[in-house]
């Protein structure tokens, strides 16, 4: 279990502030780095319990993919839901139809002019995680394959 250092946290916070206007992202949590550049959020007490036990497969919830080399952060569905209304920049409201496409992992065509390569999707009060924006303005949701709705 590798807990994110203060400097790594600072960088993550900076990126999230820059990408989505989030102040002090995940401050109430301990952040743990797991394989594949994945960041998981949990509590101090949970980490203490995990240290007492053997055979720990994981702690907390996966909140973001964090590529330091590229200075980019993709929020998982749960990561965006934990940040909730702290997300105030580059958030794109979707219709039910677009939300369905998003959850199928399909690109969503939408004219947006955020100018950012990263956006977070939202339908009503529900945050849907991050998408990459292509040059031709398509949103590519970063949804894990196991999480996708099958196409009809």
């Amino acid at each position, binding site marked *: 279990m590798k807990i994110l250092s203060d400097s790594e946290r600072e960088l993550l916070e900076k990126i999230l502030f820059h990408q989505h206007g989030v102040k002090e992202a995940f401050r109430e949590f301990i952040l743990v780095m797991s394989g594949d550049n994945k960041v998981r959020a949990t509590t101090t007490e949970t980490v203490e319990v995990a240290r007492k036990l053997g055979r720990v497969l994981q702690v907390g*919830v996966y909140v973001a993919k964090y590529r330091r080399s590229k200075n980019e952060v993709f929020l998982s569905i749960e990561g965006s839901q934990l940040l909730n209304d702290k997300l105030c920049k580059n958030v794109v409201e979707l219709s039910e139809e677009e939300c369905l496409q998003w959850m199928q992992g399909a690109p969503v065509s939408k004219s947006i002019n955020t100018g950012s390569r990263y956006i977070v999707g939202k339908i009503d009060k529900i945050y849907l995680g991050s998408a990459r924006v292509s040059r031709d303005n398509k949103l590519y949701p970063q949804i894990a394959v196991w999480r996708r709705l099958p196409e009809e």
Partner: protein
Amino acid sequence: MIESSMREELKNYLLKIPNLKLDLLIEYWSKPIPESFRVNTLKLPEEYILDRLRRRGLIFKKIPWARYGYILESESELSLTIEHMLGLIYIQGPVSMAPVEALDPKPGEMVLDMCAAPGSKSTQILQLLQGRGVLVANDPVIDRCKALSSNLQRFGGYNVVLTTLDGRAFPKLVGEFFDKILVDAPCSSLGIVSKDWSVVKNWSIHNVIRLSRLQTQLIRAAFDSLKPGGTLVYSTCTLTVEENENVVDNLLRSRRNACVEEARLDGLRYEKGFTEFDNMRFNDELSKTLRIYPYHNSAEGFYIAKIRKCE
């Protein structure tokens, strides 16, 4: 259909169970268990999520014994809804929600789900902890932990550790550590035959006795890992006495400070646990445990025992 694939050995066993209505049991085994779900209040308010489902045309009614639990009354594939994929609802059988309600975890408590995969009851515990305290969700079968991990992720609880220990290892590792423990033990599954008919084909008393030994070791390990004053719930989704009353009786014999308590579950129909069976005689306290047959609630069959570690 089911009756013809049922082995003689199983039929003779079931005929020995007092008050069991075998015809009715077989009838309910042949029917699907109603679709039901819990609303995930860790993510959004209950009414908001229910409103979304209503707008999709879903009709449902409240399950009286389970907070946030609903039975679907309209035709629908819940597993294909956006709400399921987003973790706003969790699909779980109605009676399967009863053991955690009996355990009643409270925010701030240290809780162990000893046999956790695929995670229905772990997510229910996380919901009741409301983000405070810690849940250890444990299962030694790595293949089953994949589903456990996905279900925990979708549900969104962060105060959880997933471990792959043999449940019997806990007392040595942590001592008297947990406020609440759920032992939803591996069992011969006679309460959920409608989900998997092969259960009746493969059932054997030999396997039941093997499971009973493991279950006795698991319940003891759980009891020894409880803080004084802590509570454990032992549950199975099967009907055999060897895997139910006999296991709890073994615990009462070996641990003098184990006290059985009656679980109070609104509107759930059941029969009292047995104090004798065949040539076995059990502690009278066993009548406080719950025997739930599929025909009692038109759903799964379960056995539930609530035990406190007296100080």
